[in-house]
Structure formats: C-alpha cells, structure tokens
C-alpha cells in the first residue's frame, strides 16, 4: 500500500493571549491518500486556518505531528515546501504594482521552479488560468476573479504533489469556477492530493471524495461524501406551490417522506417535503395529498451539501454526534 500524502496525528495547537490559553486544535488525526481530494469544513474559528498553516510550515504545532509524504512539517521544511502548493483566497498576497507575469515568476522561483523552462511554464500556467492577455498588466488593475486565478497559477506552477486549497473559487464567475474544478479534478487524476477548504459546498460536492469537519478545534467527522450527504436524512426536497386550501401535510408523512413545512401567504401556499427514498409508496402518498388541491408549480431539488452542512453544524453546536466521530 502506498504511503499517504498527508498524515496528521493527534495534532494540537494552543495560543496564549494575555495569559489565557486558547485551544485552536486538539488531537486532530486524519490521512489524505495519494490522488485523493478531501474537503475540510468547519465554521469560522473551528481550526481550519490553523491546520492549513501547520501543513504549509507557517506554524508549529504544540502537540502531535504532521507529515507530507513522510516528511515532518516541523523539521523537513525544504522537502515539504517543494512538494506542497498553497492557494489562498482573497485580494491580498500579490504585488499590486507589478504585473501578473512578474508576480508569477517570483513566486514560481520561491516554490523551487528552476530557471530552465521557466518561461514555458509561466506561459502554460497563465494560459491554464486564462490570464495570457492580462499578464503584462499591473495586478492592481485586475478584478477579484483575475487575482484569484493568479493565486491559483501561483499555487500550481511548481507542480506540487500536495495542494492546500483555501476557498479557491471565491470571486470566480460560474464558468471560471467550473473551469478551476476541472483543473483540480485533472490534477487529482495525475496523483495530486488536495486538502480543499471551502464554504462553497458545491466545490466539495463536485471534487471531494471525503469530508473532514472541524468543530472547536476537534475532529467532529471524517466521512465519505456520500455518507456526509446522508447526514441530512433525506435525498431531495419537493416544493409544491398552489392556491386555495393547503393540503394536509400530515397525510403524506411516512417513513419515506417528512414534511418540511407549509407556508401560507397572499392566498397561495408552499409545501416543502423532504424525501428520504423514492418508492412507489412515496409517489402514491404524494398523489393522494395533492389530489384535491390546486397546484401551480412543483419543484424537485436534490439535497445540497449546503443544507447538509447547515444541519450538521446545528447538531455539532448541540454537542451531538456526526457520523459516529464526536
């Protein structure tokens, strides 16, 4: 069996603020395999940035260990940095007065890209993120999305074996975001391992095979994406809108269907049903419930990870278990 790309063992980090101890990470352990994309989720202050900083060799852990392809992130700095790329979201982290190509060249050199073939690599990276035409313009003239694309080129130009992606699609339009997801998926197929932090659950849904959830610095869950999606307790939401008397929600309630709620406003009503499983029985119940009401519109939405995460976050706040970890 091949060595995991990322190994995190009982990692802990404590900060001291005016004599007060703040635990940012506590006994966090997980692994990321070669060519695996793992989504890292958690509310603000859950410990995601602290974990990313430790893996990027910018912060020393207080306890435990982390390794990238067997190299300790606290000792084998050069080896870890050579094989790790970091993509950070946001407007900062670039030299605004300099052009995109100069920025990329400098950070490529820092990441260990050699002089030979550098120009070709710069051109290829700029082409990949669609910045060829703007490469010689000062970064201060770039839009938020263009800056984000430059960040992505910087993180990937050294062809790292491990990528730490922090909100990579922030600021990108849907087409660009989808293009980026395609690039990350292609990298995964070449064996690159990715730890993906994103509040856009669509990124996780499209790319990740596993989800790690941090809550208050501890590992609250480590689940395959399919199992994470099941945490919602339903697979789709059926939204029915109509006029007149609203249907009796209780009539459709069954092991397969739960009533999410009925809203009545301005002479119309909206019924939300959470369907756990589509079966002949569930269709029959729906048909019966809607037989004597005036229906204007029916919409079926597969469960979204955003909804799942909202539920999971609420459960974590109550101290409940998720996926049997906490």
């Amino acid at each position, binding site marked *: 069996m091949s060595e995991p790309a990322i190994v995190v063992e009982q990692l802990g980090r404590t900060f001291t603020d005016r004599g007060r101890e703040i635990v940012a990470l506590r006994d966090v352990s997980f692994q990321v395999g070669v060519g695996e994309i793992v989504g890292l989720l958690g509310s603000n202050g859950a410990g995601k940035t602290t974990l990313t900083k430790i893996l*990027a060799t910018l912060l020393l852990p207080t306890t435990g260990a982390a390794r990238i392809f067997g190299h300790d992130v606290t000792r084998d700095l050069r080896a870890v*940095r050579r094989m790790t790329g970091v993509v950070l979201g946001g407007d*900062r982290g670039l030299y605004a007065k300099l052009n995109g190509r100069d920025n990329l060249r400098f950070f490529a050199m820092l990441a260990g890209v050699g002089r030979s073939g550098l120009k070709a690599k710069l051109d290829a990276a700029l082409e990949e993120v669609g910045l060829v035409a703007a490469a010689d313009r000062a970064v201060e003239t770039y839009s938020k999305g263009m800056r984000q694309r430059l960040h992505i080129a910087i993180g990937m130009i050294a062809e790292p074996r491990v990528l730490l992606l922090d909100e990579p699609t922030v600021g990108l339009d849907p087409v660009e975001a989808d293009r980026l997801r395609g690039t990350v998926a292609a990298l995964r197929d070449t064996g690159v391992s990715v730890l993906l932090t994103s509040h856009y659950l669509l990124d996780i849904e499209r790319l990740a095979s596993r989800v790690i959830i941090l809550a208050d610095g501890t590992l609250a869950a480590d689940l395959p994406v399919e199992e994470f999606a099941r945490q919602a307790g339903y697979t789709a939401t059926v939204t029915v809108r109509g006029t007149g008397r609203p249907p009796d929600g209780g009539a459709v309630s069954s092991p397969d269907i739960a009533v999410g709620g009925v809203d009545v406003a301005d002479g119309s009503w909206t019924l939300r049903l959470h369907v756990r499983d589509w079966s002949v029985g569930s269709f029959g119940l729906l048909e019966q419930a809607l037989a004597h009401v005036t229906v204007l519109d029916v919409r079926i939405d597969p469960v979204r990870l955003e909804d799942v995460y909202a539920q999971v976050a609420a459960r974590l706040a109550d101290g409940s278990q998720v996926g049997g970890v906490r």
Partner: protein
Amino acid sequence: MSGALWMFVTAFRMEQRAMQRNPLLLVNSGMLPAVFLVIAVETGRPEPDGAAELIVAVMLTALWGSTVWMSGGVLRRERSFGTLARCVSGVWSPYLVLLGKSLGATVTSVGAILVSTGVTAAALGLPLSVSHPVWIAVSLMVLVCSGTALGALVSCLFLVTRNGLVWSHALMYPVFAVGGLLIPPHALPAWLRWAPDLLSLHWIKDCLIDGATGGVTVAPLGVAALLTLAYFSAAGFAYRRSVERSRKEGTLDLA
C-alpha cells in the same frame, strides 16, 4: 547560475521594479538630498575644499533616511501586501530573499540620491571634484552593501514587533544626530563621541571625502567593511530568530 543565486537576483529585480513605482523613492532619495543641500548652502556657502564634505554628508544622511524607509521597509511592505508568509516559506532561505530585496531597494535609492545630489550640487555651483574615481567606486560599493545590511537589520523589526514602524522611526533621528554625518563627532559631548564609530556610514563618509579630495587611507574602508559584515551577521541571526518565533507564535498570516 545556481538556483539560490537566481532567486537572489530575481528578488533584487522585483524590488527594483517595485521601488521605481514607489513615491517614497522620489521623496526620500530624490527630493530630500536636494532640499538638504539647498538649505545647507543657503545657511552658509562652504569653502571650495569643504564642498565635498557637505555633499557627502547630505548624501549619507539621505541614504540613512532611505534605508529606514525603503530597504528597512521591505518586510513591512511584504506584511501589508500579504506576501510575507510566501516569502518565508519558499524552498530557498528566507534571508536570501530578504537580502536580494534589500539590495534592490538600496541600489535604487543610492542611484537616485547620487543623481539628485549631483544635479543639485551642479545647479548650486558647488565644485564636484573626483581625485580617485576607483576609490570612490569601491567606497560606493561598500556603501551599498552597508545600506543593504542595515536595511535588512531594520526590516527585522517588523517581524519582531507589530510596532516596527514606530521603532524604525525612533532609530532614524539618533543616527542623524549622533551618527557623525551632519554633526561632526568632535562637536558631540565627550561621553558620546564613541557613537559614530559604530556606524559604518560615518567611516564611509571619510572614504568618500578622501576619494574626492585626494588623501586616501585604507583604515576607514576596512572598518566600514568589518562593520558591514557585523550588520549582515546580526541581520541574518535576527531574521532567522524572528521567522522561527513567528512560526511558534503564529504571527505569519497566510495572506
């Protein structure tokens, strides 16, 4: 060219390009020496043999101001741009990157100061004599190295403390006052006359005046070079310690 040297050269060029778009270059290295020189000449026109001393003193005073603001501000700018974390977490020594950038800032500043001082001195009709051009060139090289090392040392303040700007400003005026640049050391109180000896710029001033007027002596250049080496060592030690401390305390922001 080895990878490390290429990284150093890239950092140097990056900083030069960034400096050329920085308005502080115009103020500190362009306007400041010109204003100093005009005020000094208006206050009392020097004798022909005292012109070199005045020009060199103004140049070095402006250079110290530039060192604090420009090369000493390298890490401050990295922090404000959000690029500091990347600079210290590359595969090359972070000190190499800092030195390359500090050198880029110093060379740009020295170039601007030389042009500004030369043009202003010519416009004011001050005699510009160069008795030993090679000696002056060597002295300028030591000056650039010294400015680079001092800049790197001042830069570390911005990693050690969030109040780096206040501390670097606090350093500026003692050097102006007791550095032996504008105020001759013999005019200082007796108990303070050792202070200029610790500043390489004070010794380089002697070298440049020697190169302009004729009487070349090696000792001041040797002392300046030794002090410069000491600054480089201190900056390297301080930078490595500061980066390690930042990694321990978590003060290196991702962006």
